[in-house]
């Protein structure tokens, strides 16, 4: 089959004919494949839209009368999925807190704010706003304990805090690992390898359940923060190796040039090594962020009501038990929106950073 580089110039029909209908066999194969595809799309469309029940006004009975999707369960239980066990009349706080994190993330993704001061203000301000909105206790907002946090806000909180704590930690570990003092780099290597060789589940268990026995009461803090610290440590161990890989991609001449100009260690790291290392490490870093976002669902095991657990509760009680597919589809959509935005942003960063390299 002649695959030419001139497809752009051919019309749609010509392209179709050349690619899919160039011989009798090809045409038959194309028709069969297109038919199957069309059938699947139609079936899905029919299930998800045409025959679906969207309103919960008539209760679960309305769903049972049709073959379509029962989105009514989302209509009835969306608050539980998004907010978990958070008190009903305080849901606006949870929603606002989520909004704060989204705004904070979007702002810090804009190149305009990429300087130490703006990023610090955005992150510390955003984080405090999130925390006090969720926790309450000021401005007349009733206190809501971490134990009652749940749903999407909890998932977002776990993810953001893990990354916020884990990223500086990972940079520190990566720098220590390449230290010129052999015992420091060896020790860091052992720490990284030990954390990496444990399953995240074990680490979460250890931090949430075992640690309180080992620490005095005043030092152990809330179970949520211990677990998040464990997950941050896990994230940092992987991310440190990713950053170290990025650092190894920076030629030694870069550091020599900076040294020869009299630039000190701190600035060599900040201005020369890390920016180039981050660029090299970007694809793997986005990967790690995506994995970390999805791994927040493991918090379900140590008794937290993050979005997956809230989803289970949403169809697990009352008369909605048959509608689990719809609930999971809804949660999958939420995951998709987050993770897909993350990878699109990664692609944008890669394009932007490629400006100088031709």
């Amino acid at each position, binding site marked *: 089959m002649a695959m030419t580089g001139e497809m752009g110039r051919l019309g749609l029909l010509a392209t179709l004919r050349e690619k899919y209908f160039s011989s009798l066999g090809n045409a038959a194969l194309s028709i069969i494949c297109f038919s199957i595809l069309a059938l699947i799309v139609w079936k899905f469309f029919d299930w998800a839209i045409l025959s679906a029940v969207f309103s919960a006004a008539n209760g679960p009975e309305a769903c049972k009368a049709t073959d379509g999707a029962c989105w009514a369960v989302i209509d009835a239980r969306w608050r539980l999925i998004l907010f978990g066990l958070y008190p009903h009349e305080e849901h606006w706080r949870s929603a606002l807190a989520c909004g704060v994190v989204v705004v904070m993330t979007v702002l810090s993704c804009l190149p305009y704010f990429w300087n130490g001061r703006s990023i610090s203000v955005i992150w510390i301000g955003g984080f405090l706003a999130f925390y006090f909105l969720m926790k309450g206790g000021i401005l007349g907002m009733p206190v809501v304990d971490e134990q009652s946090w749940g749903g999407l806000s909890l998932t977002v909180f776990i993810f953001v805090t893990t990354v916020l704590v884990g990223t500086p930690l990972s940079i520190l570990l990566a720098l220590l690992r390449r230290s010129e003092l052999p015992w420091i780099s060896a020790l860091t290597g052992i720490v990284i390898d030990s954390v990496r060789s444990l399953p995240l589940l074990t680490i979460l268990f250890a931090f949430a359940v075992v640690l309180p026995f080992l620490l005095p009461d005043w030092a152990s803090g809330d179970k949520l923060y211990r677990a998040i610290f464990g997950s941050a440590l896990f994230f940092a161990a992987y991310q440190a190796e990713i950053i170290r890989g990025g650092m190894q991609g920076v030629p030694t001449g870069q550091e020599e040039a900076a*040294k*020869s*100009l*009299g*630039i*000190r260690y701190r600035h060599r790291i900040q*201005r020369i090594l890390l920016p180039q290392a981050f660029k090299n490490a970007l694809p793997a870093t986005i990967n790690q962020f995506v994995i970390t976002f999805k791994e927040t669902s493991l918090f379900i095991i140590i008794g937290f009501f993050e979005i997956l657990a809230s989803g289970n509760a949403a169809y697990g009680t009352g008369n909605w038990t048959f509608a689990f597919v719809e609930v999971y589809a809804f949660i999958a959509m939420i995951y998709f929106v987050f993770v897909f935005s993350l990878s699109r942003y990664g692609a944008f960063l890669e394009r932007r950073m490629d400006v100088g390299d031709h």
Partner: protein
Amino acid sequence: MTKTAEPAITIRSMNKFYGSFHALKNIDLTVQHGERIVICGPSGSGKSTLIRCINHLEAHQSGNITVLGKALDNNILHIDEIRRDVGMVFQHFNLFPHMTVLENCVLAPMLVRKWPRAKAEELAMQYLEKVKIPEQAEKFPGQLSGGQQQRVAIARSLSMQPKVLLFDEPTSALDPEMISEVLDVMVALAKDGMTMLCVTHEMGFARQVADRVIFMDQGEIIEQNPPEEFFGNPQNERTQKFLSQILGH
């Protein structure tokens, strides 16, 4: 002795080892202010290592190095102090690829000399003009040719207003047609009275600007003489052999 008569660089009985390999053997070298020195020799003779010891990119194991009146030891503060005043131009340019040409030039003056951006940029533009490349200031290194990159690297070093410039085979990685544009800049610098130590195989450059040509082999300084003497009447057998190889075609 007046202050200006004090040498820019003094190296006394300096030795450098890589493990058990004796890379530099008992080096003695004195460089006066304003002196232009060309160092040549076969590859692996230790010439790059020698100039890299002067700004402590390589540590020496014994002997003394004094640069601009300051003794070079393992104290990082002393090392940084010396590096501030000793520029270096590398074979592979080593420009910072994530910064524009101008950013490359103002980074160290702003961080190390603590000059305000306006002053650093004004000086940097002055030096970019000197290397005949001011119109490329906003480009990234990756968008320039090898010869242009090396000229930017020279401007970057000059932007720190160093008192000594070290050149480590500055034209070896260039396509032949770009060598002369870099050499022209180096000749101009030499005429301005910059103290220069150049490791290079460009013997024409050595004849034109060097006050002294040093020949090294197997980690030793074999011979050093003014260019007429060095090229006209080489004393050592090894120098003769090297010169016949490098000039013989």
